[in-house]
């Protein structure tokens, strides 16, 4: 189990280091799109603060979606995926390793940058901390469900858009709870209920996302 997990985790991390561009692109996209709203809307501080957490969350969602098509497609093209399916390690562990690597290279950097963007929107310090916590908790959901979407659309033309269609609706609860936690803080309410709902949703999507990814990969290579 653990060996399979660390195996693909280490390999994908190494590949990501070789192709730093991919991860950097995602982060850049996140930062630029999120910084663009004040530019594009020319809004005053009041409304800006109100939409801040939501914009940051949606941008994080879109940014991590942007990196999805690559998750399995390259492995399919060069035959590595086939090798994973016939390997001596359980498929679930191998896929979990890949998803973990995806989160470490996109979700985690996104979460760490999120408070900086929140600062741009004039969020107060306590809201920034909640924003960080909510993106930290929520971004693994995006990686997990996103992996399922990527696996389902493997080898399909227009996979990027299609994966978005499949994944985005499923991610809505994460978005609602995540942005909701920040909004609660702004209204001087307790963000904890939102965050624990987010945590529960993470647990559900761990099981569902992993199962769906493995099942979809087997189907794609049948």
């Amino acid at each position, binding site marked *: 189990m653990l060996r399979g997990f660390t195996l693909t985790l280490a390999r994908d991390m190494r590949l990501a280091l070789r192709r730093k561009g991919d991860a950097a692109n995602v982060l850049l996209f996140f930062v630029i799109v999120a910084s663009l709203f004040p530019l594009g809307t020319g809004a005053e501080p009041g409304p800006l603060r109100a939409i801040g957490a939501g914009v940051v969350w949606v941008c994080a969602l879109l940014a991590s979606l942007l990196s999805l098509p690559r998750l399995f497609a390259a492995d399919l093209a060069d035959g590595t995926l086939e090798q994973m399916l016939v390997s001596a390690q359980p498929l679930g562990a191998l896929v979990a390793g890949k998803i973990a690597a995806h989160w470490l290279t996109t979700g985690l950097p996104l979460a760490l940058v999120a408070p900086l963007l929140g600062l741009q929107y004039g969020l107060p310090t306590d809201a920034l901390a909640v924003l960080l916590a909510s993106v930290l908790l929520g971004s693994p959901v995006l990686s997990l469900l996103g992996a399922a979407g990527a696996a*389902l*659309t493997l080898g399909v033309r*227009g996979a990027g858009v299609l994966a978005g*269609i*499949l994944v*985005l609706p*499923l991610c809505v609860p994460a978005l609602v709870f995540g942005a909701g936690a920040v909004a609660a803080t702004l209204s001087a309410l307790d963000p904890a209920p939102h965050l624990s709902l987010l945590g529960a949703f993470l647990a559900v999507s761990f099981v*569902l996302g992993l199962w*769906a990814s493995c*099942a979809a990969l087997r189907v794609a290579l049948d």
Partner: protein
Amino acid sequence: MASVLYTYASPQAFYPLAGRMIPWFAWAAAILALAGLYVGFFVAPTDATQGEAYRIIFLHVPAAWMSMFIYVVMAGWAGLGLVLNTRLSGMMASALAPTGAMFTFLALWSGALWGRPTWGTYWVWDARLTSELILLFLYLGFIALKEAIEDPRRADRASAVLALVGVVNIPIIYFSVQWWNTLHQGASVSFTAAPKMAATMLAGMLLMVFAAWMYSIAVSLARVRAIILERERDAAWVREAIA
């Protein structure tokens, strides 16, 4: 029972059976709908608080119930196909999806129309409404994924995985009014508690629900027949059936 099921699990055996069943369900749907509309518009009393606008209920509630029910049935067929690898299951799921999407759209549309006079707005982003919208997206995603994969067997299995993942949304829709503080009203029909609405209203609504049910079965059977013909077009029995 098991052997009967097994026999009709083959598309070849199911095709004529479906053909024989369609007229029955279609007529049942038509008669029930006429009766339901009559009760709904001429027998049921005007609502004390909402006036005549409440009559949208005869469209809205059946559509909303069917949207969720069809999804569960569709996911059930899809899951069955994934486990047992039977050809008919995937075809049934494909046949159900458009009808389910149609009812979801109808529920959203009628709900929005209803919301204008009662809530003063077409749309609010509350949990019930949002999760119903997500249901529409799930149906459309299911259809889009099926369309995108050329090999029908592969398409069946991939979309089955998606359908099963999406099932989580159904309890969220149903219980959203209890779990969250929503604008939308809670359940007023329940098997355990006494009904809270006028008997004629309830009768009209239930008639419409059964009509929607019969309609869904008839339409899905007709669609599954078309799918069987298309997928098995190279089989000898289809050539004979067409010729």
